[in-house]
């Protein structure tokens, strides 16, 4: 175990768009915190600009976007584009919510690491983020 892996993984859990369904986002935030990660929850109704700014300020290793409004094909590409505009390529981006299966390949092609749909297990999400975002940064 090196020093790098002992550093807490920093995750921004974000709610882009206008929908108020925050049950899932809050559960994921708690589960990640209980798993020992540093969790920053943005709260509701965030614009892509606000989310990217939070990710930068918080020096996030991962950004989890929770969307249940159907606007994911507009808002997720915008977040990724803004991250890339800021020269940030090493932040892991995951998406959760009601995302139709047909949209998943397109989101992944844009750079989304994984999409977690309804019924996803929090342990599965914790493991994924730990494996993909843990120990990367020094």
């Amino acid at each position, binding site marked *: 175990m090196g020093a790098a892996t002992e550093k807490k993984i920093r995750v921004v*859990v974000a709610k882009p*768009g*206008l*929908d*108020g*369904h*925050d*049950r899932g*986002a*809050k*559960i994921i*935030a*708690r*589960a990640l*915190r209980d798993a020992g990660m540093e*969790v920053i*929850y*943005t*709260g*509701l*109704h965030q*614009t892509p600009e606000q989310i990217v700014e939070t990710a930068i300020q918080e020096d996030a290793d991962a950004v989890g976007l929770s969307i249940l*409004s*159907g*606007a994911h*094909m*507009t*808002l997720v590409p915008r977040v990724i584009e803004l991250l890339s505009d800021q020269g940030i390529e090493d932040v892991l981006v995951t998406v959760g919510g*009601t995302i*139709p*299966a047909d949209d998943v390949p397109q989101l992944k092609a844009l750079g989304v690491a994984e999409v977690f*749909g*309804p*019924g996803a*297990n*929090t*342990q599965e999400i914790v493991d994924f983020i730990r494996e993909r975002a843990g120990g990367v940064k020094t």
Partner: protein
Amino acid sequence: MATHVDMGQTRERLERWQREVFGRGTERDELFETISGEPVKPLYSEADLPADTEAAIGLPGEYPYTRGVYGSMYRGRLWTMRQFAGYGTAQETNARFRYLLDHGQTGLSTAFDMPSLMGHDSDHPRSLGEVGREGVAIDTLQDMETLFDHIPLDRVSVSMTINAPAAIMLAFYVVAAERRGIPPERLDGTIQTDILKEYIAQKEWCFPVDPAMRLVTDMIEWCARHMPRWHPISISGYHIREAGSTAAQELAFTLKDGLTYVEYAVARGLAVDEFAARLSFFFNAHIDFFEEIAKYRAARRIWARELRERFGARDERSLLMRFHTQTAGVSLTAQQPLNNIVRTAIEALAGVLGGTQSLHTNSFDEALALPTEEAVRVALRTQQIIASETGVANTIDPLGGSYHVEAMTDLMEQRCYEYFDKIDRLGGMVEAVKRGFPQREIADAAFRYQREVESGARKVVGVNSYREGNEHDGIPILRIDPQLEPKQIARLRAIRERRDGTATARTLQQLRLAAAEEDENLMPLLLDAARAEATEGEMVAALQEVFGSFREAPVF
């Protein structure tokens, strides 16, 4: 009535029976609790009935209304089958409404899109990608007129699910009817308006809590004077439950919200009997069958008691808790979606056995997207099967007197009053909401439930058990045409160009001035602004200049 001696013997016999049957670990390895975590005994008996059963349940249509608000209940008239619908522009939703009426639906229910719920016009930067996605986009009076085109507004009861900007949508609706020659006193329907549960659970807001409560009270007051057939508010537990609450939390927070609106209206100077009969309710029907039925029965009893004893209501209609029910969206799974038809049928049955006045059954594809026409038809047919084939509507409150259901009804009532006490100690519901108390209780319950599912203690078919078949999940889902957003924006901009801009600006200025005066009812000013074709977003923005906006502290 059993005597004390009989009861003692009964209890003794029961204890012996329980020792003999369950003494040697013969129970399944299972959580014997409701989905909300309430304990469930292996057997209920006479000993579990309320001390005075007759007084606790009475007769249907009689105080305390445990057995139903009307004497004849479904023997007289079935519940209203009211499917919630809305997507795209007003034209698409108008077509869906007419489809539902053609298929035997008896009332309409409007779902608005996220920008409309948040008070943003479709061309607001924050509306990007959200227009018409989760409901219909309504920006203007003209949109409202298109939405109800060819629908007889004086004969069909219409429900509108909108809260923070409810007063504005009601103004559009009243003016749309007025332009067809239908006066407000002939309009029959409901607008949700329940802003407290927005801060608690659904989280679609425009203004801070205090001015939002003033707007609600303005509407209740205006409707009491001008719309005798209209329900200006539908006090809603549905979203509280969907956000993860227990049944008892849903019951307690909803009733406490309702009592708070009554307090505000009385403080405004209205007599309780002037408006209480127009308050309506909206509950969830979750999958734990008996707990749900008990919840509805307890709700009627508590509401009647509080209105009579605390507010001194004399008109019997003020005591009746009439409610709409929707099956639990949150109980549906994306895995093996056809199973959702079964879940919905069981939940709908709980609503019917609980004595609901109207019912929405969810479609089996709703864990994935807005429903397709086929899925909506199956959902409506589910209600029609319950109504016409099963015979459950032939007798009133068929579970009344059941040891289990009566004991559960008492337990729900007890839990509700425990929460009332906690909320009162915080200074009432408005203060509790500002401090995030119900929000935290719900988040805790949601997390506890998720833990139980993930540990396998609570089984959900297709999610943590019986997963064979999950690989065939693909079903056709409704896609919203992305061209609807630019189309709606074009309609909106055309109206802004065409209208008399000076007149619009004048009504908006009058609205601002009135908003700054605390004792002015804003409804007449919103009606004037609607007549002058001000958009929803413009009216909300004008009010926000005076009231400010709202931001929740992000806690988890």
